[in-house]
């Protein structure tokens, strides 16, 4: 029971949903796995947008578009052994939850422990986001978190990989490293405050990046900052050979 909920709105359009979302104590609701688990007392109104966002994966020409309502399990089924299917699977150990958790929610919640989210940042996918009264396209690394994600778009031709480090396979990883072989962009997530991204040539991390990583990681029960930086280097060495 989510006791603080007093009202559920089912707007007819995304424009209406955005307006409703301006109200304090409201939250946009799609898959809901993060929100219902948190059961925030601050939330009084759910704005259900399930019926307004696509839940299909379409491949047209050289482009793939994924509706924000597509579940992780759908992605795993569609992309199968591909790195996208694999990382969708590894983003959540429970198939029950993968049947519920949507890719739009994964991005909107800025989940840093989600391997698929790190991978999408490494690809630098475009998001179709409904802001104010229109849909705009913005790359995931530049998205400011405003608006409603309706679709994720990227080229079929991609050359990326992702690797996660966790205490046991079913635990959320404390470090996730994504790498784009084409742009040489490395994206790091995990038990971190946000994502770090930088360009890595030939698998070598320069001094500026070393400093950035030193600030990015903290010593905790998963290991020291130095240990985590070492794991990132190991991942990059594996990616770049």
């Amino acid at each position, binding site marked *: *029971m*989510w006791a603080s909920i007093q009202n*559920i709105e089912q707007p007819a359009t995304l424009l209406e949903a955005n307006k409703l979302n301006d109200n304090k104590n409201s939250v946009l609701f799609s898959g809901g796995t993060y929100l219902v688990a948190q059961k925030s007392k601050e939330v009084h109104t759910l704005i*259900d947008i399930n019926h307004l966002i696509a839940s299909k994966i379409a491949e047209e020409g050289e482009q793939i578009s994924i509706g924000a309502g597509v579940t992780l399990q759908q992605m795993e089924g569609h992309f199968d052994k591909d790195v996208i299917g694999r990382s969708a699977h590894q983003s959540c150990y429970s198939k029950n939850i993968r049947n*519920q958790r949507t890719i739009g929610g994964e991005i909107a919640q800025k989940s840093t422990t989600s391997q698929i989210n790190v991978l999408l940042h490494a690809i630098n996918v475009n998001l179709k986001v409904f802001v104010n009264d229109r849909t705009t396209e913005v790359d995931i690394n530049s998205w400011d978190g405003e608006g409603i994600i309706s679709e994720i778009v990227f080229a079929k031709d991609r050359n990326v990989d992702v690797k996660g480090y966790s205490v046991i396979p079913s635990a959320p990883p404390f470090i996730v490293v994504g790498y784009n072989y084409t742009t040489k962009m490395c994206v790091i997530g995990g038990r971190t405050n946000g994502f770090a991204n930088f360009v890595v040539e030939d698998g070598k991390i320069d001094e500026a990046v070393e400093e950035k990583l030193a600030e990015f990681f903290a010593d905790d029960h998963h290991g020291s900052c130095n240990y985590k930086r070492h794991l990132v280097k190991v991942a990059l060495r594996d990616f770049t050979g």
Partner: protein
Amino acid sequence: MKVTFTLNGKETKAEFAPGETLFHYLRSQEIYSVKNGCELGECGACTALVDNKAQNSCLIMMHTVEGKKIETVENLGSKNNLHHLQQKFLDEGAVQCGYCTPGMILASEALLRENKQPSTEDIRDALAGNLCRCTGYVKPIKAVSHE
């Protein structure tokens, strides 16, 4: 608020408070096979089938079940007429305290509906979201493997 859906084969019209989850609704209808575990989506004790897919009912808001087909273990078998998966779990000794068992049976049933001959890896994956502190998973996996 009101919603219409199919619950264990019967068309059901439910009235509920806005913040009510499917888990609470099912328990209020005396469907006690759906267990209260963590209410965080971590343990799978509250598993229900939603349109043939295993999902954690504690994370499902009631208003989202409109038009859906919801099933619990009560729909599979009864005390005097066990479902073959229930029988297999018994035969293999895959039931100890029994708290996670309804969730495990439903997760297994969902798997078998989409894949008649799952590999051990498929079974492990399907049951990974159903936490069990008694069996160690060996016997439940064996029970589903022998289907």
